[in-house]
């Protein structure tokens, strides 16, 4: 599934079953890091490439770098390579950091040079032990190059710890909770300096674009979005794992490669826990292209593709995720703390076959009411997931609400 005929994409090179690619092998395969003498050209190249951030929000990478590179004043900036990957079902960042640590370091160095940063922080989820070990070893291989400017910070556990303001807050104060914006971290972040918080996959891709250019980047991509991207395929598949796909590849092709069939799949969760459900039928022909998906109200997000088997109930699966997201609230903002809890409770009651009167109406009312009412986008992401669940599993929600039983698992559950 790795993009054919190109040995230079993110996961090209040695097998992912083996050891991390060490620095001599990395250089032998890809060449040394291009001179950073012309960092302005790299920003232009990133803009021309159309590369979007791979942390979930999909913000254009070139524009993000440009905003900091063109700041007023000469104060130093900070680059944070964000490898928190708090999304429980996503594995692509930890796989990348574990097996291609030098691509991430290359990207971080290039970003620091391009935006005029004198500090680099590698911010890695503490639970991703293999990734931490590999990045540590790679950093020591690059000790001379990185010098004193780079440090590794272990991110705390938790879904919100990777959110940009929470990242900055944790590095500054040890509190991994989001902060009110403005100020944006690009204006005042780590140590009050302008800070570029960039997902590790985006940085790794910047390292390839620096070497091969934006035209090369755009040579992959079947539809409007160009390039390749890492996806995590899991759930009801034979071969779960992290794959690199050409953007625009129909989901069905990826699913087939992973050993899934449309007949055994009920629905697919795309983009992460903040993402969207799609029915198996719709998913199979859907191009995995962020622009196409966005136009259909779907999320490419962090590239998660999680398959729900036909034997499982979408109401139940959604309740599990909503419980997780409600618990993951940083509990700083009322509408998120209370709204997500109420949504999770109602969904769980429906899933368990003991709905309270009006639970479905409550969910439908709380979705628009909760939107946009938080310091960060945690409630917005949870609501996107919840709304798509009602859309895809609407009949199941109604059946649960009406009968207290599940038509999918065929179980009468109205037993307290």
């Amino acid at each position: 599934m790795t993009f054919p005929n190109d040995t230079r994409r993110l996961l090209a090179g040695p097998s992912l079953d083996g050891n991390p690619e060490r620095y001599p092998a990395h250089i032998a395969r890809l060449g040394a890091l291009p001179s950073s003498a012309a960092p302005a050209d790299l920003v232009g190249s990133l803009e021309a490439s159309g590369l979007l951030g791979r942390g979930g929000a999909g913000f254009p990478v070139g524009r993000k770098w440009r905003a900091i590179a063109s700041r007023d004043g000469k104060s130093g900036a900070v680059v944070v390579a964000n490898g928190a990957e708090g999304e429980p079902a996503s594995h692509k960042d930890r796989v990348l950091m574990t097996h291609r640590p030098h691509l991430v370091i290359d990207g971080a160095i290039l970003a620091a040079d391009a935006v005029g940063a004198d500090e680099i922080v590698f911010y890695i989820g503490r639970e991703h032990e293999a990734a931490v070990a590999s990045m540590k070893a790679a950093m020591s291989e690059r000790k001379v190059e990185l010098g004193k400017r780079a440090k590794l910070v272990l991110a705390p556990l938790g879904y919100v710890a990777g959110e940009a303001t929470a990242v900055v807050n944790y590095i500054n104060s040890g509190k991994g909770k989001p902060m009110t914006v403005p100020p944006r971290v690009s204006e005042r972040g780590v140590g009050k300096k302008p800070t570029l918080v960039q997902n590790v996959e985006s940085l790794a891709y910047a390292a390839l674009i620096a070497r091969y250019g934006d035209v090369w980047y755009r040579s992959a991509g079947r539809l409007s979005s160009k390039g390749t991207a890492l996806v995590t395929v899991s759930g009801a598949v034979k071969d779960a794992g992290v794959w690199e796909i050409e953007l625009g590849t129909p989901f069905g092709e990826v699913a087939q490669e992973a050993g899934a069939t449309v007949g055994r799949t009920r629905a697919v969760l795309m983009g992460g826990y903040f993402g969207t459900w799609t029915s198996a039928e719709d998913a199979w022909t859907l191009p995995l292209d962020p622009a196409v998906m966005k136009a259909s109200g779907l999320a490419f997000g962090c590239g998660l593709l999680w398959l729900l088997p036909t034997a499982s109930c979408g109401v139940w699966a959604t309740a599990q995720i909503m419980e997780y997201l409600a618990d993951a609230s940083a509990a700083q903002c009322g509408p998120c703390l209370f709204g997500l809890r109420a949504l999770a409770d109602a969904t769980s009651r429906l899933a368990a076959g003991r709905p309270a009167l009006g639970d479905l109406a409550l969910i439908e009312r709380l979705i628009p009411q909760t939107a946009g009412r938080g310091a960060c986008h945690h409630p917005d992401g949870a609501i996107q997931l919840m709304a798509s669940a009602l859309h895809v599993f609407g009949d199941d929600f109604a059946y649960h609400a009406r009968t207290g039983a599940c038509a999918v698992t065929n179980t009468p559950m109205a037993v307290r």
Partner: protein
Amino acid sequence: MGQKPADMKLRIDWILCDGYSLCSPEAPDVIDLDEWGYPIIRPGVIAAHELKDVKRAVAACPMSALSLVSPDFDKRS
């Protein structure tokens, strides 16, 4: 700068807001409350005739979580 006085919108610092619900009674046409007492702001800018009430609502918040800002405040560049 250059904004007409009424050409403003209400901003809530959600981390500061603790749901004391003291804002809504001062400007009920602009600020509603959810079931937990947290404000729900009517979308759009504040009309000139609403400004006095809204300013009272801002002043009523014990957490200083409300402020009047220009409509393009916090828009991404």
